[in-house]
């Protein structure tokens, strides 16, 4: 145990004395908080961007029907050619002329958002009148989950993924390259003790930065965690260890930082897209959904959302915890078996 503590303490000191790296890791959450605050200060972005072709006052009908609508964001553009070009490049969803009747509008027919904007504008979203007559709107009994509350667990799991994979991967590869690992091999220190010290040191740093991020965002954006913060912390820690163990596999034998960078990118991109941080994969082929189950980040994101958005207890997350535990054991075993002290 004394050997583990020795390396754990040394790594932590290394970390906080490297002011550039430490500063960036502390600054990073604040930048995210600032970015979020900027984006969501008015209750979040309106999804459809409409360019109003005018340099003068907007027509009252357009003002009332379009610009005051919760889903339309109006942008004034005087140059029609420029507006059409932006529409063509999916930078705008619709272009609307601000002149007397009839109001001409343009959409990009290959853009789903353009088509939806048109439907909203012309109220043609559901044109089947028979169905229209049979529809009765119902409301959700529970408190609706705001977009920021849905997004936040994904953002912190994504930040955790980058910090876990690159933090642990690069550190070990650099130590192998410059001979620190070789020197440690000539001591009674075992690879298990060394790797445990690295994992816990990185976990400590990730927890610290994410506690700052959570507190700052919660204070600035006013969202709340519906479950227990303690459970959130426990689940997040388990998830972090699981993702770090993926980094260990990459770091186990990699000889150069360049190769490590490439391998880590190969891992991070699929994890980011398939873990539903940004969008759902409900309609993806079954094999993709199955593959996503092998990625720890999918379970981390889902579990965090259950706790934060649905108020789930740790017991309710037995499936996620089961997958994460299995994946951690598998990745750690592979990483430890493959681990080499020297090049």
């Amino acid at each position, binding site marked *: 145990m*004394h*050997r583990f*503590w*020795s*390396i754990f*303490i*040394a*790594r932590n*000191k*290394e970390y906080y*004395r*490297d002011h550039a790296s430490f500063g960036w890791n502390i600054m990073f959450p604040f930048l995210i908080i600032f970015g979020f605050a900027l984006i969501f200060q008015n209750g979040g972005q309106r999804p459809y961007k409409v360019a109003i072709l005018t340099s003068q006052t907007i027509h009252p009908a357009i003002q009332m029907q379009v610009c005051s609508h919760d889903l339309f964001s109006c942008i004034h553009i005087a140059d029609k050619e420029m507006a059409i070009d932006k529409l063509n490049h999916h930078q705008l969803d619709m272009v609307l002329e601000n002149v007397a009747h009839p109001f001409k509008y343009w959409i990009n027919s290959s853009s789903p958002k353009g088509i939806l904007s048109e439907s909203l504008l012309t109220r043609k979203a559901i044109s089947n009148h028979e169905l229209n007559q049979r529809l009765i709107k119902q409301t959700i009994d529970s408190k609706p989950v705001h977009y920021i509350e849905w997004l936040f667990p994904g953002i912190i799991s994504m930040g955790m993924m980058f910090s876990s994979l690159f933090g642990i991967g690069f550190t070990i590869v650099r130590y192998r390259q*410059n*001979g*620190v690992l*070789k*020197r*440690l*091999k*000539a*001591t*009674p*220190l075992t690879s298990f003790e060394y790797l445990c010290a690295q994992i816990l040191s990185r976990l400590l740093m990730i927890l610290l930065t994410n506690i700052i991020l959570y507190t700052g965002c919660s204070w600035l954006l006013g969202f709340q965690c519906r479950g227990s913060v303690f459970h959130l912390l426990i689940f997040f820690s388990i998830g972090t260890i699981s993702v770090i163990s993926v980094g260990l596999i990459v770091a186990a034998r990699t000889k150069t930082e360049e190769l490590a960078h490439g391998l880590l990118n190969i891992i991070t991109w699929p994890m980011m897209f398939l873990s539903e941080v940004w969008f759902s994969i409900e309609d993806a082929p079954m094999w993709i959904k199955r593959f996503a189950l092998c990625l720890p980040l999918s379970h981390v994101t889902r579990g965090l959302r259950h706790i934060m958005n649905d108020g789930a207890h740790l017991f309710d997350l037995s499936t996620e915890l089961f997958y994460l535990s299995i994946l951690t054991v598998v990745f750690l075993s592979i990483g430890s078996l493959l681990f080499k*002290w*020297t090049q």
Partner: protein
Amino acid sequence: MRNSGVNQNNISTTGHLTVKNLVKYYGKICAVNNISFNIAPGICFGLLGPNGAGKTTTIEIIEGITHPTSGEILYNDAPRDRSFWERIGVQFQSTELFAFLTVRESIQTFMRLYRNQVSLEQLIRICSLEDIQHQENRKISGGQKQRLMLAIALANNPDLIFLDEPTTGLDPQSRRHLWEIVSAIKQKGKTIVLTTHYMEEAQILCDEIIIVDKGKIIAQGVPEDLITRKCAGQIIRLPQENVSQDVRQLLSSNQDMTWHLDATNKFILIQTQTVNECIALLMHHQVDLSRLTIRPHNLEDLFLQLTGKALRH
């Protein structure tokens, strides 16, 4: 400090190392070719050889860093086990340390990896690190770093210490300072295995040496004995312009004398066992002897004689 296997003079008597038929292949290249030797406790044992001779591979196999292709290593007459790493100290040719730790913290970090520890203050004093103990590793000089690495190698009061080219790249002052520290460690009865490219260093510090070339041992013994055995006589040095072609021919024709130019081509080196006769010959031919020097053979002469003068890569 802890004493294991202490004799009447309070000197450690453990640290006996036996290397038997050591072989190491890297692919098809044989780096170590059936090497065997014994290192008695309490001596400084030198492992010498040109670049690529297999010294570092041999030492790293003994340290447990590299696995041998075949062969056996016994420590105190038993195969090495995990306790071996508790009892050895290692200073590699070139390694980095945790860049942002101070010198003192680095020693502490390594000390905590062992059950057996020495006094930190004592270690800092022995290795003359008092003035830089609170400096970060990334800010210390090459000589200071080598002293720190030596301190780390001594952190567990080892019985057997491996020093792999500890003075390479150091200025003469730092080198001599390190020799003093190594001599002091030797006085405590520790067994030291030293590799070096500096023959002067080996001659001063080593009680016994082996010279390795192309993975094989080509000479083994006490340095002075080896020099006497393999390079008899003295070396007379004169500026080459003082010795005419006629005199050179005379020297060549004499069976007791051989000559060659030194590496700079400025001096002629005459190797002879009959110094008086040689000087008489030079005086007879009115050679200017005002800048003459005479010296015995040294380890470098022996080394070059055995391994040749061709450049190694």
